């Protein structure tokens, strides 16, 4: 079996770990701290997560959350521009950062006895960033090259960006994280500083320390270095413009000479995990696993690749860890000689069958078994556990939600899955996309008749 086809950048995050010692406390200035112990190796990961992502940007400055992420390496009064990573590296560690729609995160992985040093440096740049004229202008060129490389050189990424814009008419999830090119080109130092001063503060952040550490020691260090930082007074209720009810199916097609393998995608608006209300998201997680979780036995793969032999790949994915409503995604790459129209019809027929007859009982049981095993395998990577907590705590969930998630998944019934499928798999609330090589016949309207 060959796995090389993911038109969505979403992976199935099946379960969370419940073992592993997790401790949490809050500092007086609002910083939430989570400590995850793993004493197998003398290594520690520090992650600082800000509850500020691209969906929190004001209109007109798309990309500013990600631009600031780059600029956070440009120095403070005590650390020269570019030296942050050099100091971490010179101590044998590695570091990087990431931006999503809902959060921005920074991390270092380093020998456990170097924790104090990286906590001091990370706390320093939370409030004391300095930006010189030269530095921000050069970095603007870097993020435009990043957009060139990641989006504009990749027809799959371009189409994904277009589909997402069509999916969210009013919610900022429709704006790409890296930003629209014309708005990126106009970003300024002041835009970056406005964003930084509003959101980069202890009362908008979550600190996760994972690895060979003791909670009392982490608490003492956190109070020393993060404790004195002033909270921001710019943190209000986190409320973004919400989507109007979608009443009409949206369809789009995209042609590009660089496309060699056509495919059809479908994404439905879907609810996300909510604090102490994760049941529907759990049912959708199981539904995605049943439809596309295995490249051989999942329902779409078996029907389209094995039985009907009309597809090369079939995919289903859902990641409920999101602050606002998210999407449930499907994709099918047809076999040579099979049209996108036929591939889409076959996909819809499979969905109709699942909604009527449910998931085969044996398959349902296997998915549950795998989810339980995943809890054991997940313990093997403390850095992944750290990401799991950071992501949850910056998307409206609590530590209890993370720890209850495996049990919520385990409790999902066939009826729950059918109810969730009936609610979500409605083409009137979906975007369907056809990806085609240049010169292909666009008969996308044929299906509507």
């Amino acid at each position, binding site marked *: 079996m*060959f796995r090389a086809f993911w038109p969505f950048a979403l992976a199935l995050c099946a379960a969370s770990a419940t073992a592993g010692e997790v401790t949490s406390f809050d500092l007086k200035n609002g910083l939430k701290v989570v400590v995850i112990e793993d004493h197998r*190796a003398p290594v520690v990961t520090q992650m600082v997560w800000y509850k500020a992502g691209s969906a929190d940007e004001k209109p007109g400055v798309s990309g500013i959350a990600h631009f600031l992420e780059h600029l956070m390496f440009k120095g403070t009064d005590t650390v020269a521009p570019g030296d942050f990573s050099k100091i971490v590296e010179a101590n*044998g560690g590695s570091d990087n950062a990431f931006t999503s729609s809902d959060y921005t995160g920074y991390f270092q992985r380093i020998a456990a006895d170097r924790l104090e040093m990286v906590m001091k440096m990370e706390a320093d740049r939370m409030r004391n960033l300095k930006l010189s004229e030269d530095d921000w202008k050069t970095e603007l060129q870097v993020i435009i*090259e990043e957009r*060139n490389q990641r989006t504009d050189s990749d027809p799959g990424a371009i189409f994904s960006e277009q589909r997402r814009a069509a999916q969210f008419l009013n919610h900022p999830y429709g704006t790409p994280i890296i930003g629209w090119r014309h708005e990126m080109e106009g970003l300024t130092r002041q835009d970056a500083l406005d964003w930084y001063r509003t959101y980069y503060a202890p009362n908008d952040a979550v600190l996760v320390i994972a690895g060979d550490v003791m909670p009392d020691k982490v608490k003492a260090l956190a109070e020393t270095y993060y404790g004195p930082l002033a909270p921001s007074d710019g943190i209000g209720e986190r409320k973004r413009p919400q989507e109007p009810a979608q009443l009409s199916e949206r369809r789009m097609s995209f042609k590009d000479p*660089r496309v060699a393998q056509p495919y059809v995608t479908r994404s439905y608006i879907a609810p996300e995990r909510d604090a102490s209300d994760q049941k529907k998201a759990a049912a959708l997680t199981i539904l995605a696993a049943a439809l596309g979780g295995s490249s*051989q036995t999942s329902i779409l793969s078996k029907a389209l690749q094995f039985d009907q032999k009309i597809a090369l790949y079939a995919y289903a994915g859902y990641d409920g860890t999101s602050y606002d409503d998210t999407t449930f995604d499907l994709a099918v790459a047809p076999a040579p000689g099979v049209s996108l129209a036929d591939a889409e019809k076959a996909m819809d027929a499979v969905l109709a069958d699942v909604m009527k007859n449910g998931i085969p009982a044996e398959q349902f049981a296997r998915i549950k078994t795998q989810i339980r095993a995943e809890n054991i395998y997940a313990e093997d990577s403390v850095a992944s556990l750290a990401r799991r907590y950071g992501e949850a705590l910056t998307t409206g969930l609590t530590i209890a939600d993370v720890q209850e998630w495996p049990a919520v998944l385990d409790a999902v019934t066939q009826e729950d899955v059918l109810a969730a499928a009936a609610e979500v798999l409605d083409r009137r609330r979906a975007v369907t996309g056809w990806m085609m090589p240049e010169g292909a016949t666009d008969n996308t309207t044929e299906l509507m008749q």
Partner: protein
Amino acid sequence: MIRAIFAAAFAVAAAFPAQAAVQIQELTSPGGIRAWLVEEHSLPFTALEIRFEGGTSLDAPGKRGATLLMTSLLEEGAGKMSSQDFATAREGLAADLSFDATDDAVTVSAQMLTENRDQVVALLKSALTEPRFDQDAIDRVRAQIESIIRQDETDPSAIAGQSFDQLAFGDHPYGSSKYGTLDSLAALTRDDMIAAKAATMSREHISVAAVGDIDAATLGKLIDDLLGSLPAKGAAMPPHATLGLTGGVTVTDFDSPQSVVSFGQAGIKRDDPDFFAAYVLNHILGGDGFSARLMDEVREKRGLTYGIGSYLVPMNLAETWQGSFSSANEKVAEAIAVTRKVWADVAANGVTDKELEAAKTYLTGSFPLRFDGNGRIAGILVGMMAEGLPASYVNDRNGYVEAVTLEDVKRVAQRLMTPDALRFVVVGKPVGLATTN
């Protein structure tokens, strides 16, 4: 091993762990197969890594793509099980089994829970010893690989990589894609799968490592049960490649806002006495992170790219020193000029004492951080075995890095770096660049 623990503890006190916190047991199974083991009983599962040296370079003449197709078919039906049966069984046991083929090896990675380990081993054994290679599975997986070949034809990064390999390695297997061509793939038969398996999966060039909830005696029996019935010998290894790289620029026209660049020159053998000096040198030139010379000059100072790196590529049958980046079409000529200049400067002048010290602290400090999960440790061990390194290497390796002097780096830079012989393969619509000879 008590002494090793004390040494590690001392190192922690002095700076940070200079040694990896793993205790490797070297064992030979009753049936004579060598394996390395790290016991880790805190989680109830075991990671198992198996590596067969040779890989896709053992494709028979005219059968390019056979090894990769064969490897992809190992999980598509075995013994009495169809593809669906096999996957169903694996999922019911919640085991991870994966099979892959690279230029140099066929690899098998497995993760299995302690509670059903015997059943997982039986399933894996079936895949390794009695794969069915059913015609419908061959046709289905072949169509998937054909799709990848067609996608690679319109992917600038894949075009650049394949163009570089062709220039560097010519008719040697390294010079062409391991997927094969549409024509070579179309001609492959079930007999070719059987032949490819016999050529690439034998006990002759095998490395085995396990990390997790298992002891040496149990592992020994497991290995004999799993691998004992494989043939004793496989195909002969192909010859060493003759490097055909010359200095210059090769442009492939491709309509895109950005040009993708692969570049490189001759490298150094893994067992060369100067390897560690070259390794440290490359880290300073274009290694991980943001402090390397190339990253600093091309990205940090000029904003010409999102990322640039260089890497020594000591493969079984060839040694190269390669790098890659992407730049806007209008900027790529400048980015190449800066890269050449950095290369020439380091070749002529070496590096600074400060750079050398920073590189050594990074390389020695980051080494133990790699050993942070059962699967990752098993992967490292099997790689060491394949390279012929002793188990003690995990404790000695940082000493080799520490021993590199400024003079060593300068001497190796002068010996190896040939700025005039750097070949840049450019795929895009570069402004002000044309193919040279």
